[in-house]
């Protein structure tokens, strides 16, 4: 097996998951379960390609895509923050709407998929980092990814700073842990939650851009393929902490990459490897919650 390619693919597969995870963390910490990540990701993938096609300009496509996802974020927030609706139902609605809107618009346009390869050169979007790409082995893994992949890794640090080193981060955590306390000290709870959800919407847009526009210059129906849900699993595994959740996101990316790379030598049994990412989700969630249970103490005593 080619380990260099395995790790390169792991970073490549992991990037959209990391972005979704980082965006979802804030909503998680603010006690709004954002299961709409999947739909927002799909919407991001769709609108970025669609508007790149219409405007013939990648930057404009990306900008409009982010704006549209912000609208989605507001729709979701209105439903479950202002109107206090059940976030699971609201999220489900957003997910189903996103799938349906993409399929419907494709139908209206009369296209089987959106292809912008005449505008976007996928190979040209890959950034070769000077000096680093000269390092043997490591260079081939770290260098040669598209912009959003690097953004995702930089964002891990940025999000950590926002979460733990800013007033806003403190507010988000306070709102999530004790809403009444937050209200009593004059924090505008709803506004904090709106911002938390909107950060998630923007990050999902970036993940969608990474998935469709940057890696393939192509949108096909249902291409999100559960990445948003995998991200939710990672958020729960890492209980909303930017660093830890990102590590889980990379592990899930690695699992996907393993499934792909192992299939080359496995022949007919390669299908089994496709279960690796999902098996790992179940396994990690189980282990994490067992560990949490063990350390769960009530007034100094073990909670059994």
């Amino acid at each position: 097996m080619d380990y260099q390619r395995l790790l390169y693919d792991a970073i490549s597969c992991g990037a959209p998951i990391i972005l979704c995870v980082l965006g979802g963390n804030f909503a998680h910490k603010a006690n709004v379960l954002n299961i709409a990540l999947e739909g927002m990701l799909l919407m991001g993938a769709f609108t970025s390609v669609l508007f790149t096609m219409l405007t013939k300009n990648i930057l404009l496509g990306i900008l409009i895509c982010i704006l549209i996802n912000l609208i989605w974020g507001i729709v979701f927030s209105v439903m479950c923050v202002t109107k206090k609706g059940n976030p699971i139902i609201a999220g489900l609605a957003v997910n189903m709407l996103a799938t349906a809107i993409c399929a419907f618009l494709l139908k209206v346009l009369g296209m089987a998929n959106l292809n912008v390869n005449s505008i976007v050169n996928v190979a040209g979007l890959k950034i070769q980092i000077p000096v680093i790409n000269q390092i043997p082995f490591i260079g081939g893994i770290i260098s040669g990814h598209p912009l959003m992949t690097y953004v995702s890794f930089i964002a891990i640090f940025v999000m950590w700073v926002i979460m733990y080193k800013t007033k806003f981060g403190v507010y988000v955590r306070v709102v999530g842990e004790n809403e009444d306390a937050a209200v009593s000290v004059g924090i505008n709870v709803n506004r904090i939650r709106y911002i938390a959800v909107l950060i998630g919407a923007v990050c999902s847009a970036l993940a969608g851009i990474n998935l469709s526009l940057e890696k393939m210059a192509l949108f096909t129906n249902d291409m999100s393929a559960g990445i948003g849900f995998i991200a939710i699993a990672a958020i729960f595994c890492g209980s909303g902490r930017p660093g830890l959740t990102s590590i889980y996101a990379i592990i899930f990316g690695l699992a996907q990459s393993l499934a792909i790379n192992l299939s080359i030598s496995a022949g007919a049994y390669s299908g089994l490897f496709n279960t690796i990412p999902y098996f790992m989700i179940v396994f990690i969630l189980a282990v994490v919650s067992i560990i949490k249970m063990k350390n769960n103490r009530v007034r100094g005593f073990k909670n059994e």
Partner: protein
Amino acid sequence: MKKSTKKLMALVLACLLTVAFSMTGCSSKDTSSGSSTASKEKIALVCSAAGANDNGYNQAAIKGLNQLKTEKGVDTKVVETTTDYPGTLKTLADAGYKLIYSLEYDFTALIDGVGGEKPLAEQYPDTTFVVFNANPNLKEDNTAKFKNVISVMFNVNEASFLAGALSVKVNENASVLFDSSKYSLTTGDAGRAVGFIGGTQSSGIEVFSYGYAEGINYVAKELGVNYTYYSTYNAGFSDSATGGTTAGTYYSEGANVVYTVAGSVGDGVDAKAKEVKKLSIEVDANKDSAQPGYILTSVLKNTNVPVYALGTALIDGTLASKGGTVINYSLGSEATGITDLSTIAAAIKSDSAAQAKWTEIKNYITDLSSKIGSGTIKVTNAQIGETLDIATLSNVKLPK
């Protein structure tokens, strides 16, 4: 006052919903043109889950149906993706459609019956149902179960054989044919590899893969070389991103051509082919121009041919004689085959050596096509239950 406004609104909404629901119920009963006369034949078509805009399987069938409409003046009806497949068939048969094409892959309701009901083919003996890609209409003794069901099959195994032969021919002569600055094909023994990505493990997919492998084996044996055959049958039909990454691993393992039979996953593979400057093979419709120069060819399944032919038979009154049969569309029928290669031809170098080689390859493929037609070459057809004996693939290595 305010309360009454609310009540009024609720009433209006309720009315709207009722109307909306009742409309959906009878939408499929409406005929497409209001001014239909009783003498007009009525033909319907039910799309598969991929939908009418799939740029392939469904869209071609609709094209055939529209041709019938304009040329023969029949009443036609297209039902797009439906969740209640048996219900749709029933509604159509009740509405007097005498010929119904079903592009769905699920035949249970039609042949075996679901929910304790009799099979639909039995319930509507005057309606002819046409199914594609398989022959479910069989009793245990291999005779036809219903006289009003026709199975249409495309010998895509033969078309895939040609695609396989073309892959090897092009790969072996890549340095002559292609401009090395535009392509980065792996050369030498390392480049003697191909990939196959299938959506699911079923005979409907294997029929492509087996034909392709045999085509590769045929030419490889002739040239005395060995090819590695990377394959997966679990790509699904929608995850184009993962499909692209999978193709990426095949390409970096040395494969120069990857053949994908997996719905929109193929689009991801084509995009990858362009990215790494190698070649891919498409399926169902002529998609060569999706990534011009990087799609070697497309294996065609022209559903419009049988749709038009059977519709004409209905009008001529000869349809009854075809009842209960299996119609196989072979290479010669133009319902299947590979594209005319004009898109990839534009990417071939313009010098005389390249052009001469390209003509030679095209002639070779035409020759192979006639050999298959005459029965000199026999290609395994998985969709009618034939299995491939891997031992016959002497020059194809399947990684274990």
